[in-house]
């Protein structure tokens, strides 16, 4: 088990290094003069801000230094939690801007990912080897899983927000309410939360249901299932075992899907102008705020790495074979 975690942590550490390096490299190795281009494209109205940007970029990139020094400085700043200064909301540090947005993204993602996983697995397990359910769940599942996240978000907003008028179309809370720890704000935030949550939940749901259905059929054909049938064990027990074992690859699947789920959350936030990382990314692109964009990238990578590690821990808990140290586990 120690080997298992050591391996995992090594992969995550390497991933982090690669991500940071990519982050450092892209502005430097893309064709053209990034500073001039950025300042020119930034269209900053205040002259002092434009000047500050130019000085700041030149200092930060330190183009007269050798590459390896630039690289080390980059790491040094990063390890002190310095992601740079945002241009869009000049002169707020990028880290602060991102931290303000983070709760909204997490508040959207964590419930939708977990709930879709649980409900999807449950539906998938129910439909496996049951003709009527199978014939309805599968097609619906495939349509859901093929939908671009932003499209289902737009449709939901149009139908339930615009046409029916049940939910607000945009924002994380109403403009006339001050964010704070009170019931009024909580209810308002919840009201705004429902539609983005629902879009994320529905698309992911289809995939999990289909995955579980296929895995459970595979398990129902396995030798231990045949043996139980041969001993006359009731379907209930056989299905319970099959479900239990089919969940394992679904846990691994959750780790594999994290990137896709994050991407889904970002575009969904954009549709609803939900004040999370996705909207920040859109703003940073529209305002050519590259520091904010790169900071968001690192935030996402770190978040995904942490989530991966948590899933690894869960996997060890649910699969006894990793604990006995005899099987590899997820990757």
């Amino acid at each position, binding site marked *: 088990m120690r080997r298992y975690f050591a391996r995992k942590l090594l992969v995550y550490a390497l991933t982090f290094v690669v991500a940071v390096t990519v982050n450092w490299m892209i502005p430097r190795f893309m064709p053209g003069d990034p500073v001039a281009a950025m300042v020119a494209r930034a269209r900053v109205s205040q002259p002092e801000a434009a000047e500050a940007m130019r000085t700041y970029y030149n200092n930060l990139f330190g183009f007269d230094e050798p590459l390896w020094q630039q690289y080390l400085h980059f790491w040094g700043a990063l390890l002190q939690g310095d992601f740079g200064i945002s241009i869009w909301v000049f002169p707020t540090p990028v880290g602060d801007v991102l931290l303000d947005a983070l709760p909204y993204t997490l508040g959207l993602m964590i419930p939708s990912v977990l709930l879709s996983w649980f409900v999807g697995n449950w539906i998938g397990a129910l439909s496996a080897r049951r003709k009527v359910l199978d014939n309805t769940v599968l097609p619906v599942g*495939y349509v859901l899983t*093929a939908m671009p996240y932003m499209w289902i978000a*737009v449709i939901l907003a149009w139908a339930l927000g*615009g046409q029916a008028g049940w939910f607000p179309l945009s924002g994380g809370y109403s403009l006339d309410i001050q964010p704070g720890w009170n019931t009024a704000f909580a209810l308002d935030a919840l009201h705004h939360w429902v539609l983005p949550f629902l879009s994320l939940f529905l698309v992911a749901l289809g995939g999990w249901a289909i995955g579980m259905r*296929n895995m459970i059929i595979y398990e129902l054909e396995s030798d231990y299932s045949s043996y139980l049938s041969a001993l006359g064990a009731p379907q209930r027990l056989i299905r319970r075992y099959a479900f239990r074992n089919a969940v394992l690859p679904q846990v691994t699947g959750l780790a594999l899907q994290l*990137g*896709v789920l994050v*991407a889904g959350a970002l575009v969904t936030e954009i549709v609803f102008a939900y004040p999370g990382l996705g909207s920040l990314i859109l703003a940073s692109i529209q305002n050519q705020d590259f520091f904010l964009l790169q900071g968001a990238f690192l935030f996402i990578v770190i978040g*995904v790495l942490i989530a991966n590690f948590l899933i690894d821990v869960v996997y060890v808990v649910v699969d006894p074979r990793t604990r006995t140290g005899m099987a590899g586990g997820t990757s």
Partner: protein
Amino acid sequence: MSTRPEPAPEPAAAPSTPAAPSEPAASSAPAAPSTPAASSAAPAAKPGGEWLHYAVRNPKLLIGSFLVVVLLAIGLIGPVLLDNGNPNEYVGPQAAPPDGTYWMGTTTFGQDVYAQFVHGLRATFLVGVVGGAIAAVIAMLVGFLAGYRGGLVDEVLTMLTNVVLVIPALAVLLIINAYMGVRSVAVQGLFIGLTSWPWAARAIRAQTFSLRTREFVDLARLSGSGTWRIVFREIAPNMSSYLFMMFILLFGGAILIASSLDFIGLGPTEGVSLGLMLQSAQQWSALQLGMWWWFIPPGAGITAIVGALYVANVGLDEVFNPKLRES
């Protein structure tokens, strides 16, 4: 952009113990499902015959491929039938709902939504093909090499695969595209391909790993065949169905991720795609204005392509994998 249905795991190939000749399943071929008493030398259908039998009777496969072909045809022929070259031109009345002239209505600026849609289909298929093909090629190179060579090569490639797997592809693509001044559909596809191969490489590696211990691989070595010849002439044909299904999934995945990039505003700087249509609909408040004809068609187009691909893929899976067949 969604939970992708991976092909169902294949049953472990080749028994590792010196098992007895057991009946009725005699052949252990993964491609040709064994039938009882298949060992008797009755002139039988060739291995391809059996899956063809199921293929033409599989509604999922038929419906899925039919839809894909129809959409592809619209994307290929549609633009040719329109006389104006640029779908982004302001040709009609502003914000008009669908009518006889403009089948899908017009945008706030008077662009023909139908013209954009057929051109967009084309771009969407293109990005899918480019992204899917590049990802498939990388996945095959990495997967075959790691699975066949094993040892240190495998360790290094697996590590690389896992690293790329963990990094969220869209996030990397955001950074890359943001720093690129001019973006084309092909370059977008290229970068999508470069970031979306890891899961497929892992799957191929696992398959290759189990196939390389099969004795026909040893026999090919004894016949003087080299590594790549063995990989492409012996191992790959045995998983051709699997590779094809993998390409379909990569294709669908590339379309979805491209549409997300477009939507965020990092799509191609020239031309039109279904994702860009969604983006401008969003940007110019089609939702608030109730212009459903602007945002429904592009999303429906993407969903139809990807959904049809997935459904065809399940059909194929059922055709090749008898365990998943109904009843």
